[in-house]
């Protein structure tokens, strides 16, 4: 007998087979539909709780989540999967989500979109969950009191230890499996077979970088530059610069003189942000950063390393193409200069996810994307928006992934 612990709706241990049997029962008010009112009302009430000042102040990332789930935003999401002449949208059925442990709110986005699509969901919550994730579970359980019984029956979040039987049972029962994980985890979870009609949506290891126009920086006003420094801080220091979308390398695009001036200015403003925010960088993390950056010098990737306290390390890359894609510890920024954005296109690989930008015109960014031609880079967003979740993620239009189409042609 393989048990899981129910976190939402909060309960005790339950056998995985009993959990799956309950999911298969048709809810009293009829099966869930795409954009089902019972789910929409629940999500809107949940979002209101997240937007309460006490919650949003303590966990700013939950404020963003609450914003994402407001009624107006939900309507926009649903418009993407509205019925069309000759084409009806339905839920996929049962979706099994395996979220990451370190970015502790992503499971909510994954789940909420799938619920909105009308699916029954089982979300695996890390036993290491803490802080924001626990606040989310509390808010979900509090919201349940006013919710339709169908929500309680079809939406489940559970914790379990290393148990192949549970992972196997949940995988076999799924119509869609969503794996947010490193490459290794994706491969491990994939050992468990899906039903023939089912498939995976995977979010493997990714890395991200920033492009800044040197001339654009120097042409920006004080307010814009301060906002960009703060944006870079938020993009990088939340989640210890370990989120897939957190930028690592900073590419300056422009001539040497402009770049030198712009870079010095950005680093001074980032320093001011750090002096205000005082992020915690403990001794272990400080050593980690030394190991990572010194290693870049040893293997010839870096030509200069500078530490401005433990919170900020910059590394000059010997060659802009030699971009370090692995995690280097929080507040570690390799830097390089190129003459044009187009020079960066050849070094893009599939693993590259988000490009945050400052100081470019829209056409320049579109040209860059066309030059890259889909070989990598799924998002090009302003500096400061790296971590803002969107319904299109890693190149997937998630509302469409979470639904299926029945086409009707009447002669």
């Amino acid at each position, binding site marked *: 007998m393989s048990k899981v612990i129910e976190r939402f709706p909060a309960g005790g241990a339950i056998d995985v087979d009993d959990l799956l049997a309950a999911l298969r029962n048709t809810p009293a008010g009829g099966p869930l539909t795409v954009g089902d009112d019972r789910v929409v009302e629940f999500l809107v009430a949940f979002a209101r709780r997240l937007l309460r000042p006490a919650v949003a102040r303590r966990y700013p990332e939950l404020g963003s989540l609450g914003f994402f789930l407001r009624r107006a935003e939900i309507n926009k999401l649903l418009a993407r999967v509205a019925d069309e002449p000759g084409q009806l949208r339905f839920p996929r059925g049962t979706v099994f989500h395996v979220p990451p442990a370190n970015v502790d709110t992503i499971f909510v986005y994954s789940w909420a979109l799938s619920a909105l699509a009308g699916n029954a969901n089982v979300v695996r919550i890390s036993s*290491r969950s803490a802080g924001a994730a626990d606040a989310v579970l509390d808010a979900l359980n509090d919201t349940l009191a006013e919710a339709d019984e169908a929500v309680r029956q079809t939406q489940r979040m559970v914790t379990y230890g290393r148990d192949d039987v549970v992972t196997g049972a949940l995988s076999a029962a799924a119509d869609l499996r969503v794996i947010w994980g490193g490459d290794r985890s994706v491969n491990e979870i994939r050992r468990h077979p899906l039903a023939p009609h089912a498939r995976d949506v995977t979010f*493997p290891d990714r890395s991200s970088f920033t492009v800044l126009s040197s001339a654009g920086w120097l042409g920006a006003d004080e307010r814009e530059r301060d906002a960009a420094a703060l944006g870079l801080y938020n993009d990088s220091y939340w989640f210890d610069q370990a989120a897939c979308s957190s930028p690592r390398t900073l590419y300056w695009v422009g001539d040497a003189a402009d770049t030198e001036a712009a870079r010095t200015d950005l680093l001074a403003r980032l320093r001011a942000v750090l002096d205000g925010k005082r992020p915690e960088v403990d001794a272990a993390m400080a*050593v980690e950063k030394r190991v990572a950056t010194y290693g870049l010098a040893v293997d010839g990737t870096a030509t200069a390393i500078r530490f401005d306290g433990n919170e900020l390390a910059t590394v000059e890359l010997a060659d802009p193409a030699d971009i370090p894609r692995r995690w280097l510890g929080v507040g570690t920024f390799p830097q390089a200069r190129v003459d044009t954005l187009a020079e960066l296109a050849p070094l893009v690989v599939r693993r590259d996810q988000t490009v945050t930008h400052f100081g470019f015109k829209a056409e320049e960014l579109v040209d860059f994307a066309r030059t890259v031609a889909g070989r990598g880079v799924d998002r090009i967003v302003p500096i400061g928006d790296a971590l803002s979740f969107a319904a299109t993620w890693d190149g997937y239009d998630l509302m469409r992934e979470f639904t299926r189409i029945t086409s009707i042609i009447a002669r």
Partner: protein
Amino acid sequence: MTLFTLDQATREARLLPELVELTEHHRANSPEYARLLASLGHHPGRRYERIADLPWLPVRLFKHHVLKSITDDEVFKVLTSSGTTGDVSRIYLDKEAAGLQQKMLSATLSPVIGPRRLPMLLVDTRALFKDRRSFSARGAGVLGLMNFGRDHTFVLDENDRPDLEAVRAFLDKHGDQPFLIFGFTFMTWLYLYELARENKLDLSNGILIHSGGWKKLTDRAVDNDEFRRRFAEETGLRRIHNFYGMVEQIGLTFLEGTDGGGLYCPDFSDIIIRDPRTWEEVPVGTPGVVQVVSTLPRSYPGHLLLTEDQGVVHGVDDGVWPGKRFSILGRLPRAEARGCSDTFAEAA
């Protein structure tokens, strides 16, 4: 003959030029090390007033990179460390370094164990050496020390159970003369101390050399003082020397003085405790991260290494031996190296 003779001022004055010379030697012979120095702004010919100003390397670099100052042809031996995460340090020795390693270890220990090989009790199991594939750092540590004794007797049998008969036989034969005991700290406590206390064994002629740290004993509330007190009271064992060393520092053993008042540095070495916020040296009595300093490493650039251990200097030139008197307080927690989305491994 003893290697614990230099007061702090003499030691620093003697070591500084040697360390500067070593830094230049490694710069000239290891392109990797030369690149690192250049990246950090330590250019040739820079003057250093104090040992603490010289550039140090985080010890974990040896786990991810080949760092050596000898040619491939000159490599005589490669030492590897244990690693809980699967990473191991690789330390490259030429013939000279390999010889020096054993010689300096011997010279360091001679003031406490004397010039002759003594009968030796090993608080470990012979099974440690049975399977070559699983030959561990623990095995290597035991093997390295075995050279200092004779008539080796293991305290544990092949199933890791205390072997009372073997220990009794050893003590019957050798217990009335000085004999050597070696073991990892926690094993010495869990197996030898318990066994000796329950069976009223007389260890009063023993000389115990032990290492490995106190982490596994903290839940038993056993620290160095308690360890020494209880061994003395219950078994008569009073000559106890803790030591501290690492594979990345060949031939260097920081040894506890006769009174248990702290660890000391052999004359060719020193220790610097750094503040993990500023990386400056901290005053006596302030805990920090341990940097080890040694003039022995010539075949690899390991003469100035930042460890991942925390320690504290209790005093300078105020103990049974001259120089810094210090303790190791435990390991730094390891920052988790992460992939970006890191699905919790237990799900897999």
